[in-house]
């Protein structure tokens, strides 16, 4: 099992390098001249030219790419932001935990509430809970999360004074963003759990369990749910991507400075070091989480674990199995 994890992490390295090259190329061809952006309107032509040399924008594409990869992967130094002069690493060391915490909290809440909702909807199908759950999840999937957040701020922050509306001064500041962020997650999880559970409930081994005299609750949670979880775990990757994207918008509404605004301002102000390093780090985090998802996948589904463990398997076979 361990060497499978190592092998899986090793495959991550070429992917991350490829991501770095892709993001570098995209930013290289993005219109907009960073030097002009830094010096402002009144810089003279040779001032701009000197600035471009200082920033290293003057040399050809491959030289720049080489320098960037060398700095990032060998020296592990993402450089300093051109606009604020703030080393990217110090800024990220503060901002990454905030975004990741917000994303994981929204994801956890999404799972913790979504899955039981889905299970109850699946178990008493076409009865009231099922209808309610489906209508609720349909509505929450379709409301943009920033609209939800703004309404929540007005209701809970302004009118009722229950919760703080911005900043991170106390744990209570995290309640509104996490709840607003997790609602779409809860909706989609509930729907996916419901359809997975429906499929499992109709299967033969659930009939066997009933024939053994197990109570409905035991059947639901000891036999049906574990098997229904397997397809859900593969969805966790997509779920995390949505939570990461969602938290970028929520950070702005609740003024919790995380990677979101840092990246979007970085992009609009053509602050290349910021954009490149943030994207690469997000890709690494995302990659590692996907490996975790696969490992959890193995624990839950013995068949996959067997594949991982026996040495004779070759990567291609496993790849095909996972991609299928």
């Amino acid at each position: 099992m361990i060497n499978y994890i190592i092998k899986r992490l090793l495959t991550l390295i070429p992917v991350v390098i490829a991501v770095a090259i892709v993001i570098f190329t995209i930013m290289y061809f993005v219109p907009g001249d960073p030097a002009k952006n830094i010096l402002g309107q009144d810089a003279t032509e040779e001032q701009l030219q000197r600035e471009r040399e200082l920033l290293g924008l003057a040399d050809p594409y491959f030289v720049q790419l080489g320098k960037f990869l060398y700095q990032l992967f060998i020296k592990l130094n993402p450089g300093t932001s051109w606009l604020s002069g703030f080393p990217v690493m110090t800024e990220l060391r503060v901002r990454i935990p905030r975004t990741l915490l917000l994303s994981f909290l929204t994801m956890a809440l999404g799972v913790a509430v979504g899955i039981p909702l889905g299970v109850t909807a699946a178990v008493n199908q076409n009865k009231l809970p099922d209808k309610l759950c489906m209508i609720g999840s349909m509505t929450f999937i379709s409301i943009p999360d920033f609209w939800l957040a703004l309404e929540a701020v007005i209701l809970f922050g302004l009118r009722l004074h229950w919760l703080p509306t911005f900043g991170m001064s106390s744990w209570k500041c995290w309640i509104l963003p996490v709840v607003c962020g997790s609602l779409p997650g809860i909706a989609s999880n509930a729907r996916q759990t419901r359809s997975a559970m429906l499929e499992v409930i109709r299967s033969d081994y659930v009939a066997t369990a009933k024939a053994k005299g197990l109570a409905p609750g035991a059947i639901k949670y000891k036999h049906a749910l574990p098997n229904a979880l397997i397809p859900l775990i593969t969805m966790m990757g997509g779920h995390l991507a949505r939570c990461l994207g969602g938290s970028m918008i929520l950070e702005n509404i609740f003024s919790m400075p995380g990677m979101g605004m840092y990246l979007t301002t970085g992009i609009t102000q053509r602050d290349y070091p910021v954009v490149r390093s943030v994207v690469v780090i997000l890709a690494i985090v995302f990659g590692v989480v996907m490996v975790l998802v696969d490992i959890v996948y193995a624990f839950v589904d013995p068949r996959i674990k067997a594949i991982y463990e026996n040495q004779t398997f070759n990567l291609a076979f496993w790849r095909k199995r996972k991609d299928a």
Partner: protein
Amino acid sequence: MLNSEKEQQGRGKKQSQLREVLKRLMKNKTAAVGMVIFLIIALASVLAPVLAPYDYAQMNLDETFQTPSREHLLGTDEYGRDYLSRILYGGRFSLGLGLCAQLFSLFFGVILGCFAGYYGGKTDNLIMRICDVWQSIPGILFTIILCAALGTGWINTVIAMGLGGIPGNCRMIRAQLLSLREREFIEAEHAINCPSGKIMFRHLLPNAISPLIVSSTMGIGNTINGAAGLAYLGLGVQPPTPEWGALISAARAQIRYYPYLILYPGLMLAITILSLNMFGDGLRDAMDPKLKN
């Protein structure tokens, strides 16, 4: 002669399959309701020039922020433009955005997926690794970067949203193709040395496409929702175009004073996504009978 006979039979089969799916779809009430609602909205958007009482860009600066009244059924926005016509025209841009982005990612996703699934071996591995890289930049982040790179505007947003969806579709088609490839009727095709292109698109694809169609119908709603998020960040579709996402994002400043400005486009967006999801669910059940409960 043998071939043409097979053609008839093949076409006959497909037609009946289509009619079969439609029949089952009609039986499923939620799907039918979903489809009807979506058609109404799509029609309203297409007929916007006829239905809309005013031209969507016609300003009247002394009639700003009118609450819904007789002349302006849904009131006016901050420049005194009739909000009903802006929403109707907005429908064109939003639905167009959703449809085109999905078609864009469906089109390229299917081609990539078919090559990967059908040929297998090196091409499959190469395409899969490209998808790995493509998907390792999380969804909305990839779209944000593309929007910034391509610049704002409707077409750029469509391309950016479309590119984001390609790897997902590619994987789905490939998985379907992998399972179908071993089936006998494909070996039969080889036997009569039917050109591989024909096999791929005439025979493999119709069987593999159904899950994609389902995911795309639901994808349309999410794409429009995503556009609202992008507009919030200042990217994507810009104010002059009355796309729903941009309308919602622009109206957020007046959320406390004129809530109806964010309510109406939001409702239209919600209804569209609701109807698409209902239709999508119905379609999935109709296309895949064993899933029916």
